[in-house]
């Protein structure tokens, strides 16, 4: 007879820590004209919210840290204050 003990066992599930996009004060806005798709923004995003192919930023989860903006060699990502 197999009985699973009740304890803190967790399974993988997106959003397990909530929708971290709500933490944001500043939102990254990409100037797609200037962007040369180097991918450095995606590489350095701690949260991996930038799609490595399309370089679309997932604003549901982006915490707005601004590393992408700071590291962009083209300086084509601006951090814009969120309006609520």
């Amino acid at each position, binding site marked *: 007879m197999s009985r699973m003990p009740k304890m*803190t*066992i*967790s*399974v*993988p*599930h*997106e*959003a*397990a*820590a*909530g929708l*971290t996009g709500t*933490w944001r004060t500043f939102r990254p806005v990409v100037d797609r004209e200037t962007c040369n798709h180097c991918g450095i923004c995606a*590489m*350095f*995003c*701690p*949260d*991996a*919210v930038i799609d*490595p*192919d399309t370089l679309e930023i*997932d604003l*549901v*989860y982006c*915490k*707005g*840290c*601004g*590393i992408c*903006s*700071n*590291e962009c060699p083209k300086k084509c990502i601006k*951090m814009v204050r969120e309006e609520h």
Partner: protein
Amino acid sequence: MTEIPKEEMLLKCPSTCAGCGSLLALRYILKAAGKDTILVIPACCNSVIQGVYPYMLHTVPVYNIAFAAAAACASGMSEALRAKGEKTNVIVYAGDGGTADIGIQALSGALERGEDFLYICYDNEAYGNTGMQRSGATPLGAITTTTPNGKTVNKKDLDRIVEAHNLPYQATACSSYPADIYNKVKKALSIPGPKFIHILAPCPPGWRIPSEKTVEIGKMAVKSGIWVLWEKEYDKFTVSAPSRAAMKRPAPVGDYLKAQGRFRKVDEKTAAVIQANVDKNLKRIALEAAQSEETE
């Protein structure tokens, strides 16, 4: 250049602070390790950012364990898996407090016994999880909540302590150099026995830096030589590319200090001591690299 897999092993999104260096490092550690991996995590920032029961964000098993206990837990796990004939990677991901302070006894024991696992210390130079109290890894001059006027003694040289165990593989890394992390983890996991990687992971709230500066500050650490990237495979000691470049003409460490709020109480005298420490360390590392090359 190594092709780093696009697949992310962490689901969106761990509840680390915005701009977390340790999370950036973990992304690349898990990419290198792949699915056949178990993470062992002692009390640290990474023990609380995994999501809330009954869910988590990691797509590999995670075993959370007590603060002092990571290396011992990984020892038991690795021995059991190997006894069963399983090759699964066992990777400890621990902070500097859990490594250099409370966990050092278990770490030393595991390294001495030659246990087959990879221990990674992400070093944010204080007890970040509990709000930045000083640790043995906090550098000279840094303000923490328990060193309100700046730490008056040096950072513990964890790497030389670990080195004294004569591991098959040991390296340093920094979250600002993800490809370097990826390669070092790959290399480490290809070698049986105990492996150790020490990753400098800037912490925006703890270091009093804006969240967008995490990568930049890490690079400044390497460029000033206060943090040197190297690896040691058996007896072969190599300075990694970013530090090789930096060591030719290190940036003044003062710029690194000035960029962080935690060093705001460092006076000129202390700054000079820090610079002297850096110079001395760089000399030692250059010498070790040269000696290692000679014996090649």
